[in-house]
């Protein structure tokens, strides 16, 4: 064709047009894509900052208001360029994850920030699980369940070693189980039921070890007026009353006599070397601020089917047992006790149909609930072994070094109220403790 002297201009023009057209199409395609990409990039950046500052605002709010964590999804928040939504999830007791998604023209960007909780400071330690076993060495597993025992609620331990949580075939934890930081559920937890598992919830390592404070065992009062022994021989009225503070060598309400403490609306302090309770104990005139504190130096003994402040308020009665004096709610009768018990090295035993309503605090002793005994509220024995056995039943929370539920026990979580104790018994110098709620901080941003 190019050898032809005539008529080549038009085809040449068409070819040039074709080339120009192809070139133009490519150039336009490329530049259009680039312009589009820069707009998309702009929208992504806009969405990112919507999400980022949404998450940041919620994180700051939680750090400033640790007792009001807004769990769940927020409603969409609308700004001029787009919207954002924030979700707050409690990943573990010590870890909050705040996820925020910003959207601009249908393009979404997500950012997340994690806050860690700490329980440093004065106050009441964290009591948010049915049982927390600190698991400091010893021969016992941190948590052991046998028979058909059940924990209904979350449970946890600092332990990570092999089989530190030991669950027999028919036992069950109806809740999440937390193990020590860095632990593995496959190693730390022995689930005998390989088919369906023994833990209903998740098995999650704690973000950091929990530190529970020791017990600040109170000093016994020294300057009380000395009183005569109080015995309860038969009289026509059968009425015996203590209406003043005092120090006794012996108080013994024998022969099923009722002993009444008249509080006259204030704190009544009794120190006694030997306390024998063989009849009922009643408190009267408790309003407005009546509290009975009984300090026992050497012997605490109970027997019979008795009621100790049973229809009263547990915050009104506290029995404090010195050294190794044990507290035993009669193992052979239906003993009923409503109040707090604080022991130092002494063990606490509630058994055989006995009922206990209040807090059991043991600085260094063990606690057992046997037979059909049942306990409500708190067992706090950070250096001891707590054992529920043979249909022993409890509703509340347990903090112990180790915990065992044998044969057929039920431990149901209910947040206890340790503020009913007459004084702050937690030794904050030993570490741990907290305000009852965690404080949140140390934000760590996560790209998604």
């Amino acid at each position, binding site marked *: 064709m190019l050898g032809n002297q005539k008529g080549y201009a038009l085809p040449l023009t068409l070819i040039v047009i074709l080339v120009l057209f192809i070139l133009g199409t490519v150039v336009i395609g490329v*530049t259009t894509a680039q312009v589009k990409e820069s707009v998309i990039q702009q929208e992504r950046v806009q969405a990112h900052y919507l999400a980022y500052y949404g998450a940041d*605002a*919620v994180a*700051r709010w939680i750090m400033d208001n640790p007792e009001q964590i807004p769990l769940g999804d927020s409603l969409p*928040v609308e700004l001029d360029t787009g919207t954002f939504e924030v979700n707050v999830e409690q990943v573990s007791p010590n870890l909050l994850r705040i996820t925020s998604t910003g959207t601009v023209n249908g393009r979404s960007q997500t950012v997340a920030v994690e806050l860690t909780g700490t329980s440093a400071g004065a106050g009441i330690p964290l009591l948010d699980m049915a049982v927390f076993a600190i698991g400091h060495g010893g021969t016992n597993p941190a948590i052991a369940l046998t028979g058909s025992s059940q924990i209904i609620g979350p449970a946890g331990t600092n332990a990570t070693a092999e089989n530190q949580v030991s669950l027999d075939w028919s036992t069950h934890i109806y809740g999440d189980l937390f193990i020590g930081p860095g632990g593995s559920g496959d190693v730390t937890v022995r689930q005998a039921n390989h088919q369906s598992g023994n833990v209903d919830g998740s098995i999650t390592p704690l973000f950091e070890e929990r530190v529970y404070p020791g017990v600040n065992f109170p000093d016994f009062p020294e300057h009380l007026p000395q009183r005569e022994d109080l015995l309860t021989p038969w009289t026509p009225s059968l009425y015996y009353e203590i209406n003043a503070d005092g120090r006794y060598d012996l108080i013994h309400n024998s022969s099923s006599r009722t002993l009444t403490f008249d509080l006259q609306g204030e704190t009544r302090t009794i120190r006694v070397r030997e306390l024998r309770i063989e009849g009922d104990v009643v408190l009267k005139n408790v309003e407005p601020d009546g509290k009975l504190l009984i300090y026992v130096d050497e012997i605490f003994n109970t027997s019979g089917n008795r009621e100790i402040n049973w229809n009263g308020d547990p915050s009104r009665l506290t029995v404090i047992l010195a050294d190794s004096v044990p507290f035993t709610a009669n193992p052979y009768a239906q003993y009923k006790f409503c109040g707090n018990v604080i022991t130092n090295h002494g063990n606490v035993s509630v058994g055989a149909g006995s009922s206990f309503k209040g807090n059991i605090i043991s600085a260094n002793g063990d606690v057992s609930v046997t037979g059909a005994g049942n306990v409500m509220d708190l067992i706090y024995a950070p250096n001891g072994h707590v054992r529920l056995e043979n249909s022993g039943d409890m509703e509340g929370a347990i903090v112990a070094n180790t915990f065992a539920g044998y044969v057929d026990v039920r431990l149901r979580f209910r947040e206890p109220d340790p503020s009913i104790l007459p004084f702050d018994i937690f030794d904050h110098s030993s570490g741990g403790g907290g305000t009852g709620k965690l404080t949140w901080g140390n934000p760590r941003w996560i790209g998604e």
Partner: protein
Amino acid sequence: MKQPIFKQDSGFTLVEVLVAISILLIVAAAMAGLFTGSFQGVVSSGERSEALFELQKQAEQDLASADIGSDIIKIEFVDVSISGRQGTLRRSFSNGKEVVINVFIPD
């Protein structure tokens, strides 16, 4: 029998040249418009990127310079409501266009 158009020895060349030039001019004019538009688009997107980069810097380092809106905006959860306002960072680039970043600034 009709001869094929490119095999003809006579006529057409001048007309053909004129037609070719006309077509070429028209196409070139159209293409020039497109090329110019594309070029402007590229320049504009470059400026947009630069403005965006500056705004990001501002969002990270100098949020206090944002224009704070007067309306109260809330992040509402079931039990908690966090109040704040809309902060606006803006930067202009070519032909009066601007890039805007909005952020939530709690009270």
